[in-house]
């Protein structure tokens, strides 16, 4: 399971890096740029929990020169007008490494464009919300607690599960 930094930040905001560790179940890996972004994000107020990510995902994978070239191509595909040159590098590096090394894994990202590009490159993608659904399915968290997380993340401008605007919609979404 490879995360991007948006997913790591979500788990840090709800202060449940322990839950992410349980879900990764020893299958966590990350690329060097995501690890670097995560370390920088941990400096921001309220995100110190990100310090636990190193334990979960271990030694980061660094791109080879050929993968660096792939990263440039992929980053170009992800970019939008106005983006600074360093934006999307974490997602591009992740996709480049998974693709070139033919790793059998999931890419966890809440970035729609990164998910689209990963899918186009044959990588299975999932999201923060799907991981939280999985945690509920495995009875690691109950529905009320998860609803609390949804509200916390929404309050931090991190979005909501698809179509979830209230508790009724949440209860409908949960078993899907």
């Amino acid at each position, binding site marked *: 399971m490879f995360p991007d930094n948006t997913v790591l930040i979500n788990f840090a905001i709800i202060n449940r890096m322990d839950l992410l560790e349980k879900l990764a179940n020893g299958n966590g890996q990350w690329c060097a740029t995501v690890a670097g972004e995560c370390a920088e994000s941990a400096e921001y107020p309220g995100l110190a929990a990100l310090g636990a990510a190193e334990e979960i995902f271990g030694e980061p994978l660094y791109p080879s020169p050929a993968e*660096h070239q792939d990263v440039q191509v992929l980053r*170009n595909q992800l970019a939008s*007008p106005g983006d600074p040159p360093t934006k999307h590098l974490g997602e591009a590096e992740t996709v480049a490494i998974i693709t070139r090394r033919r790793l059998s894994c999931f890419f966890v990202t809440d970035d729609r464009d990164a998910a*689209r*590009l990963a899918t186009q490159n044959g990588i299975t993608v999932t999201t923060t919300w799907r991981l939280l659904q999985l945690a509920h399915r495995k009875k690691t968290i109950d529905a009320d607690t998860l609803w609390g997380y949804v509200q916390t993340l929404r309050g931090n401008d991190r979005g909501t599960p698809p179509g979830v605007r209230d508790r009724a919609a949440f209860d409908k979404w949960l078993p899907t």
Partner: protein
Amino acid sequence: MATIGDRALQRLKELSPPSKQGDVAESIGMTADAFSRALNGKRQFSSIELARLADRIDADLHWLITGKLDPHRVSIAARHDFNHETGQRTIPGRAGDEQTLADIALAYRQAYSEPGQLPDWPRSPASVRAVLGNGFVRPFADRLEKDLRVEVVRVTELSTAYSLTIGGRAVIAVPATGSWFRENWDIAHELGHLTMGHHDDDLNPSDALQHEAAANAFAAELLLPAAELKAVAWDLIGDDELAALVWEWGVSVDALSRRLCALLGYAPNNVARWAAHPTQRLLRSHLRIESELDEITGRMDAASQRRFPLSVQEAHLELIASGAVSRATLAWMLGIDANSLDVDAPEVPEADVDDLATALGL
């Protein structure tokens, strides 16, 4: 074989003023030890470290990675403001235009993954006129694209005109101001830069100024050929005839006046008189054209419209449909919100919870 670290070390040695390795490391978010090991090939760089390093040591990222010139590299020439009083040429808005130029380059790099080859353009204004054909000024951008493979972009965000070569494709980018005579001069000027091969990187300021003067001379001869101008009885010209000529040539009276000064040594009386007024005033009062439409406003409207070549937009539509790029760049080209852009794009299937559980051994 040289490595990324070797090339980075080479650039570090060339830096002027010199920078200490430790300072460079700190500025790109690396420890001195990690930076030293990466330079010596004992550790790889991450993508973000490499991008920051390329920026810090002013190296092309593609060259840093491969040791070769980037086939998609962008070279830019800019239209300078010329102060007729002081003779100074400057680009006051260049810094503010950088992001827009980068965005235009992104639109092209996304549209064309394979680099192109610049055409072998005719060099002289007369031969360019011959290729573009009679009355080329009115559909200037369309003729350039069709006959010379020079694409024209018009956006409000730019402060001045630029010509770019982007991975072997030629693009003229002009500000959308509504001033069609200024736009024609901009396009002709930038076309001069392109045909004369002025897109060398690392130009010294003296050469850059010489290029500006040459591009301006090219624009003058392209839009206002000396032979045509000398055939006019300027001292006898009336207001209606002057308006008709300015309309046909697609230039301002001020530009015509300066050109006549250069060619004849003086500005004829009626031209000098009207040069002190907005060109629109002469046209509104004296242009006699048979049309039910307001042609003068039509030209102004066309010169204020956002414009990207249809070929670039079509390339983006195909890429969006295949999932290779997002809608954001096409929406930006069209000047609309990406969420309101109704185009075909593939669904992104998400992993099933049970499959996820199995894969993670839960």
